[in-house]
Structures are given as C-alpha cells and as structure tokens.
C-alpha cells in the first residue's frame, strides 16, 4: 500500500514536471518564433486607431499610438523570456565556475573568491542593480549587466558547498590517482555530481530574474522606447489605464502567466529531485 502510494506520488510529481517543462518550452518557442506569430507590426503606429478595444484587426486592441497590443506583447516576449533565460544561464555558468574553482582548489583561491562572493552578498541586490543600471544608462544590455553582476553569488555558494562535500569521496581520489588533469577532473568527475541542485536553483531563479528585469524596465532603466518589453509596456500604459486598460492588462497577464509557469517548473524540478533522493536513501 505504502509502496503503491509512493509510486503514485512520484508519478504525479513527474507528471507535473513534464507538464510545466512543456509549457516552459512552449513559452520559449513563442518568444523565439514571435516575429511569425504577430498579426501586425508591433512598431507601426496608427493614430486613427489609437486606444481602440479588441477588434478583428487588433485582437487585443491598440495603445496610445495605435500600435497593436498583441503584437507588442509577442514582441516583448522575446525580450522578457529570452533575455531572462539567457541571463540566468550566464549567471549559472559564471557562478558555478567560481564555486567549483573555489571549492576544488581550496586554500588562498577559495578564501579570495569566497570573500568576494560574501562581499557581493552583503549588498541589497535590487538596489545595487537599480543604481548600476541607472548610472550606466538605461538599456537592455545594461540592465542585464546590473542584474548579472548582483545575482551570480547563489550559484557560487551552492557549487562550492557541494564540491567540498564530495571532494572527500573515494572516486575522486581514485580519479586523481589515475592521472587525470585538473581541468579534466573538474569537468568529468566533479561537475556532473554537483550540477543537479544548481540546475534546480537556476530553474527557481528564472521567475525572479524575469520579475527583476521587468521591474528595471518599468523604472525606465531597462529597454528604451519604442522597444517592446512587458515591464515598460505596463509603465507606458498606466497613464491611460482608464481609457485603454488592455494596454496594461495584456502585458500584465503575460508577465504573470510566464512567471507562474517558470516558478511552478522550478518547484516541480525541486520536488522531483527530493523524491529521487528520498527513494535513493530508502533503498
């Protein structure tokens, strides 16, 4: 009975994970294929048709300049989804590299790298990101730099703690005795064994990164007009929310749905991994 229940539970977690990974892939696909899905040109203005509600030509209505809201939301998906995923990937690689090096080398290298990590961690992330993006001047690249510089530390800490925990394992010693080079050791033996929790952490971080990027854009520190991005679209639209609520609500819904899907994906990945370790421990 208990066995059966556990099996069933595992299946539902696995189902959840598959469902959300499909949805996430769908969203990423939409963001990549967005130019082919747009009904209108997202940058073409049509003053005669400004602030109209949903109609045949503009499925979600138009904004103050008569631009198609649906097309702009789709165009914004490229900035919002693709850039967030890219940014998380960069932070993941950089943070993991720092953590691996620190944990594996130990000694003075470890001390220096971890001091820097701790230093970065002791500043409030979003505030520093706002200031850095603000000084560098508003642009998508600068916003990504600001968030990236202030966001890689979690990966480094996690990777380091994992490496230190597994460094004492026999197979590492065995691999070293077999005469593997340092780089080969790191990539072939250490990395595959520490990467699991890091991927889960990254999956959880995608949603947060999206929110932060949208927040910077909302403040005018991310993408610049007229480029479409969900955060800046909400900002542009909020002045006329009474006349044309769709201008705010369409990108708002897009942010909400996307972040929810990626958050649920992160949760499902974590649960799946937890289940796995429970089963392993039970064997």
């Amino acid at each position: 009975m208990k066995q059966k229940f556990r099996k069933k539970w595992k299946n539902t977690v696995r189902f959840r994970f598959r469902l959300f990974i499909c949805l996430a892939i769908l969203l990423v696909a939409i963001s990549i294929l967005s130019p082919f899905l747009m009904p209108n040109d997202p940058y073409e203005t049509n003053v005669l048709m400004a602030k109209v509600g949903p109609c045949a030509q503009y499925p979600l209505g138009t904004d103050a300049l008569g631009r198609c809201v649906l097309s702009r939301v789709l165009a914004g998906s490229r900035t919002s989804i693709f850039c967030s995923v890219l940014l998380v990937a960069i932070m993941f690689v950089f943070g993991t590299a720092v953590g691996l090096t620190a944990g594996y080398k130990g000694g003075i290298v470890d001390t220096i790298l971890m001091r820097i990590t701790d230093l970065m961690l002791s500043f409030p992330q979003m505030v520093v990101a706002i200031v850095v993006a603000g000084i560098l001047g508003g642009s998508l690249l600068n916003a990504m730099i600001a968030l990236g510089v202030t966001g890689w530390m979690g990966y480094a800490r996690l990777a380091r703690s994992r490496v230190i925990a597994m460094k004492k394992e026999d197979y590492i010693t065995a691999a070293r005795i077999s005469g593997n080079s340092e780089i080969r050791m790191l990539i072939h033996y250490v990395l595959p064994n520490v990467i699991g929790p890091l991927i889960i952490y990254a999956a959880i971080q995608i949603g947060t990164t999206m929110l932060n990027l949208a927040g910077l854009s909302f403040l005018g520190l991310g993408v610049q007009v007229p480029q479409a991005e969900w955060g800046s679209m909400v900002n542009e639209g909020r002045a006329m929310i009474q006349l044309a609520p769709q201008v705010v609500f369409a990108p708002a819904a897009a942010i909400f749905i996307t972040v929810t899907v990626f958050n649920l994906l992160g949760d499902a990945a974590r649960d799946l991994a937890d289940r796995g370790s429970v089963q392993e421990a039970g064997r």
Partner: protein
Amino acid sequence: MAKYIIKRVLIIIPMLLVLTFVTYGLMEIAPGDPAEMKLKAQGVIPSEEALEKTRAQMHLDEPFIQRYGEWFVSALHGDLGTSYKDNRAVTEKLGIATGYTAVLAVSAILLALVISFPLGIMAALRRNGFFDYLIRFMTFIGNALPRFLLAVLLIYFFCLQMKIFPVIAKETVKGLFLPALCLSVGLICEFTRQIRAEVLEQIGKPYVTGAKARGVKAGHILRYDILHNAMITLLTLIGLSFAGLLGGSVVIETIFQWPGLGKLCMDAITNRDYPVVLGFVIWICLIYMVVNLITDISYRYFDPRVREE
C-alpha cells in the same frame, strides 16, 4: 559576543570603501560631463565659460583617485557633498527621505506580521485542508506578481474604479495604506509560508507530544511553546526581507510619489545627480548591513546554541 560585534562593525568600513569606489568609478566611465550635468540640473544653459568655472569648482581637473579619496574622507566625516540640482546637502536630503521610507517600511512589516501570523498558523493547524490550499495558492500568486504590477492594479481598482484612496500618496494614514500594502504583499506571502512551515515543524517535535501527554491545553502549547520557538525564525525573516523591502521601495515610492529614499534615488538617477546617488548607495547599504548585524546578534541572543559556535 562583544568581540564579534566589533569585528562585524569594523568590516563595514572596507566594504563601503569597495562599494563607493566601484560606484564612483562607474560614474567616471558613464557618458557625460558632470559639470554640464550639474549646470543642466540647475536649469542653466551650459556656456563654455560657465562650464570651465564649474569644472574648476568641482575639481574635475584633479585625477580620479584624488577626487575619490577626498570624497571618501569627507564622507567618513559625515559630509556627502551637495546635490547638483539644488545645492542642498546630500545628508539633509537623505535624512528627510529616510523618515518617509522608515514609516513606509515599518508599516509594511507590521501589516505583514498582523496578516501573516494568523494565516500561517491557521494553514498549519488545518494542514491539507481547504483553507491550507487556499492560502498556499494565494501565496503562490503573490510571489508571481511583480510589485509594480500590483501597485498599478491596486491603483486601478481602489483609486480609479472605487475611488477609496488617493492616487498620489499624500502624507496621511490613508495615503500610506496602499503603498504599504503593495510593499507588504511579498512579505505576507513569504512570512505566511515560513510561519506555516515552522509551526508544522514544531508540532511534530517530541516536546509537543510530551506537553500534550501531560494534559497541557493545545492553545497553551501553541502560544507559549510553538510560537516562542517560531519567533527566532521570524526575526531572521524580517532581517532577510529587508533587502527586498529596500529594492521594492524604489519601485513603490516612484509609483505612489512617496517622498522617500527610493524616489530620491530615482529622481537623482534621472537627473544624473551623482552626489545624491552616491549618498543613497552608501546610506542604503549602511542601513542594510546594520539591519543584518542586528538580526545576527538577536539570533545569537535568542538561540543560545548559535552562541556556542
């Protein structure tokens, strides 16, 4: 303990040194001539003559390191320079704004505590019941909603549709409510989840079974034992949530036009008012580090086990 505190306080100085150096350096590489920005911020059309004069006044001809050094030494003396915009002392501007942000942050934390405590406990006591699922669902939604969106939606519904609150937060209790609510929603979700988890964990511990076996009433155990132990987690949480609160306040204050530190920072960034931005960075990070320090100390104070390490 005293040694620990002194060590932690002393380490703040080199950290601020690094932080301000990087910020100062970024301003140096950022495009634009500070003298021109200063004149523009004051509404003067920069002529070549005026530019020369301002450059000399601002010591822009001196090397970068020297200017930074002078700035840092005077900053240590509590002089953060004057604003480009209105020539008022940065410390004075920060002082006024800090009061507003403090009011906003404290009300947000209080609101979060008042709401999340009962919710978290109820969710834990009715574990896997309807109420529990409802609360978990709500906290999940709260986590996926960005603050700026929430603020815009709240303004739309409460200020424009129902006309209960003013759109621009006047400095009254009524004006404070919406910004504080926006700021606290993230906290409410986080606190509720943590309180629920903490109460669940404590309920499963042997001392609760022991107390129950001795016939202590459930309410008594909850009030005096479980919540007492949960306090430590909560203290840490309040401390940890501070970073998000400071970041969130920039967004919220800008939307509601609340004259706090966040709005000051955004205005300074838009006007390229560098002394104010620098002052903001040093001040906000100082606040953050002090709050972290207090959290760590109170953690040690409340949980003797940590002191041993």
